[in-house]
C-alpha cells in the first residue's frame, strides 16, 4: 500500500475524473500567489530599462536592490503576518523605536553599542509580543490594536528622545565602543565583481529564504496559513492559534529590529519623527506580492517581489530623470494593477 499508484480506483469516483481534468504545470504556476507581482515586476523592469539606459547598469541595480531591501526586510514579516490574518500599523515607527532604544540607551550610559543593540532586540520583540498579546486577549481587530501602538510609539519616540537626548534627533553614537563592528554587521557593503552591494540586500534574501521555508515546509507554516484562513477551524484541530499569532507579531518585531539597526548604524543617529507612513509601504509590498488582506493566502517571495517593484519604481523615476513627485502615483497604480492581475489570475486558475 506504500505505492499509492497501485491503489484500485474507487468505483464511485472513477467516472468523475474527467470532470477534474489535469492541471498543466503552467496552470499550477499561474495559481501561485506571487504571479501577478512577477508579471508586474517584469513589465516595470522592461519599461524602465527601455526609457533609461542607466537603469540596467550594475551600480544602479545595486542601488535599486538596496532600496528594495529596506522595504523588503519588513515586507517579509508583514507578509507572514498578513497570511496569518493580521495586520500591523505600528511597524514603521517600531523600526525607529528600535533604533532609538539602541542609540539612546548606549549613549546615555556610555555603554558598548552592542548592549544597545541587544536591548533594542528585546524591545522590538517585546512590542511584537504586546501587540499580539493584546490582540488575542481582547479579540479586538488588529487594525485598532496596532493603530493604538502606532500612536503610542510615535509619541514615545519623540518624547523620550527629547527627554534623554535633548533634541528631535538622537545624539551621535559614532564614538562609542562597538560602533564600528556594529556598523560592519548592519550597514556595510559587500563587493561583488566590483559592485558594492549593501549588506541589507543579503539580510533580505536570507530572510525571504527562511520565511519561505518556514511557510512551505514546516508545521509552523501550516499553522500560519490555517490561523489566517480560519482561526476557529485551526483551533478546533489543535493548532496553537494564540501562540502562532503572537509569534507572527514578534517575527515582525525581529524584522523591524534588523532594519532599525541598519538605519542607526548606516549613520550614527536617528530622527525621532521618522518612520510614520512606512507601515503602508510594507503592507503595499505584501499586497502587491499576492497576500490576501483577509489572510490565509500569500507567500514570502511575493512580498519580496512587491518590495522589488517598489524599489524599481522609486529609483527608476530618478534614473529616467522624471520628477519624483510621480512616485506615489506610480506606486498606487502598481498596487491597483498588481492586485487586479492577482485576482484575475487566481480566479482563472481556480476555475480550471
Amino acid at each position, binding site marked *: 500500500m506504500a505505492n499509492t499508484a497501485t491503489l484500485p480506483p474507487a468505483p464511485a469516483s472513477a467516472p468523475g475524473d474527467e470532470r477534474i481534468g489535469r492541471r498543466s504545470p503552467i496552470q499550477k504556476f499561474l495559481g501561485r500567489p506571487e504571479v501577478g507581482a512577477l508579471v508586474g515586476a517584469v513589465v516595470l523592469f522592461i519599461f524602465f530599462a527601455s526609457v533609461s539606459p542607466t537603469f540596467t547598469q550594475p551600480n544602479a541595480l545595486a542601488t535599486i536592490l538596496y532600496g528594495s531591501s529596506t522595504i523588503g526586510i519588513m515586507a517579509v514579516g508583514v507578509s507572514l503576518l498578513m497570511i496569518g490574518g493580521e495586520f500591523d500599523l505600528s511597524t514603521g515607527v517600531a523600526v525607529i523605536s528600535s533604533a532609538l532604544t539602541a542609540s539612546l540607551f548606549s549613549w546615555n550610559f556610555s555603554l558598548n553599542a552592542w548592549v544597545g543593540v541587544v536591548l533594542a532586540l528585546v524591545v522590538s520583540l517585546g512590542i511584537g509580543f504586546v501587540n499580539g498579546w493584546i490582540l488575542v486577549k481582547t479579540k479586538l481587530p488588529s487594525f485598532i490594536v496596532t493603530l493604538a501602538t502606532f500612536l503610542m510609539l510615535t509619541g514615545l519616540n519623540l518624547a523620550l528622545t527629547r527627554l534623554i537626548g535633548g533634541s528631535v534627533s538622537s545624539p551621535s553614537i559614532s564614538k562609542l565602543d562597538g560602533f564600528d563592528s556594529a556598523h560592519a554587521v548592519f550597514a556595510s557593503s559587500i563587493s561583488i565583481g566590483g559592485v558594492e552591494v549593501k549588506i541589507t540586500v543579503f539580510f533580505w534574501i536570507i530572510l525571504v529564504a527562511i520565511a519561505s521555508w518556514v511557510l512551505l515546509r514546516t508545521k509552523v507554516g501550516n499553522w500560519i496559513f490555517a490561523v489566517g*484562513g*480560519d482561526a476557529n477551524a485551526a483551533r478546533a484541530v*489543535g493548532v496553537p492559534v494564540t501562540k502562532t499569532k503572537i509569534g507572527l507579531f514578534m517575527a515582525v518585531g525581529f524584522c523591524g529590529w534588523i532594519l532599525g539597526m541598519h538605519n542607526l548604524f548606516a549613520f550614527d543617529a536617528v530622527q525621532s519623527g521618522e518612520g510614520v507612513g512606512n507601515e503602508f509601504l510594507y503592507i503595499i509590498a505584501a499586497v502587491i506580492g499576492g497576500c490576501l488582506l483577509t489572510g490565509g493566502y500569500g507567500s514570502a517571495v511575493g512580498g519580496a517581489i512587491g518590495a522589488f517593484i517598489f524599489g524599481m519604481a522609486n529609483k527608476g523615476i530618478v534614473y529616467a530623470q522624471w520628477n519624483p513627485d510621480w512616485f506615489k502615483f506610480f506606486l498606487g497604480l502598481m498596487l491597483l494593477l498588481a492586485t487586479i492581475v492577482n485576482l484575475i489570475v487566481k480566479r482563472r486558475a481556480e476555475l480550471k
Partner: protein
Amino acid sequence: MNAKQIDQQTLLKDEKDPLTHTPVHLLSLEGVGKHYGNIIALRDVTMAVDNGRVTCVLGDNGAGKSTLIKIIAGLHQHDEGVLHVMGDARKFNSPRDALDAGIATVYQDLAVVPLMPIWRNFFLGSELTTGWGPFKSMDVQKMKDITLKELAQMGIDLRDVEQPIGQLSGGERQCVAIARAVYFGAKVLILDEPTAALGVKQSGVVLRYILQARDRGLGVIFITHNPHHAFPVGDRFLLLKRGKSIGYYDKKDITLDELTAQMAGGAELAELAHELEQLGGHTEALKEVQAEVAGVAEAADVADVADASRENSPRHA
C-alpha cells in the same frame, strides 16, 4: 413517554455495558449542563458512548446539540454534571485536550481551512515531521501519500491533493474530516449535523462513512435533526429539546415512527394549527399542519400499541 427509555441506573453505574460488555463507557455524560451568561443552553443531559456504537443526538435548531458536542470536544466547559472518559471524570480546557483523549470532532461549520490544500488540511495540527531541532521540517511527500491513501480507502479518489479543500463538495469535505479523525486514531468521533447541508445521495455517502467508522471500532456521536438519517445508523438515541433531554432510547426499544413523532412534537404542531386557524386565510397551510398533527398522533398511538405488545410478548427479553 411511549417508548421504553434506557434505564440510566444500569447504564451508568460503571457496570458492564449490556451492549458491549466493556466494563466502562468510552465516554459518558451525567447530568451535564451549560449556560452562556444567563442563557441556559443545556441542562441535565445524560448519555453514553461505546466502542463500535453510534449514539445519535437529535433535536431541532437551538436544542443545544452543538453546545453538547462543544463540551465534549473541549471548546466549552460544562457548568454542571460530570463528563467521564474511560471512567475518569474530565473537563477539557482546549480542543487539544480532547484530541489527546482520543475525541475527534467534525464540526457543522467544518473544521477545514478552505484555501489550504487538502493534504495540509488533513494533517493540520498533527503534521508529520522529519529532522531535528530548528531544522525540523514537514515530511511533505509522506503526508501527501497518506492523504491520498486514506481518502482512497474511503472511496474518494483524488487526482490532486494540492487542490484547495474549498473546491471539494460538502460531502467530500465531510469525508476528508472523517478520514482525518479515523486516521489519527480517534476513539470517539463526533459529527455535528454532517448531513444537514447535503443532498440525498451525498447524505447516504456520509451515513456509510459513519457505519465504516463504527465498524472500525470507534464510538460515534452523530448529531442530526433528521430522524430518517439517525434511525438506520444509530444504536442509541438522545432527544434534546430546548436544552433538555426529552428521551434516551436504545434502538431495540423504539421505532422510526416513534422517533419521528417525538421529534416533531405533536403538541406544538397542534398549537400551530390553532394559531393558523385564528389568523384565518391560510387554509392551505392549515390543512397541511392538521394532516401532520393527525400523522403524528397516529404514529404515537401505533408506538403505544407496539410498546404495549412488546412489553407483553415473550419475544421481548
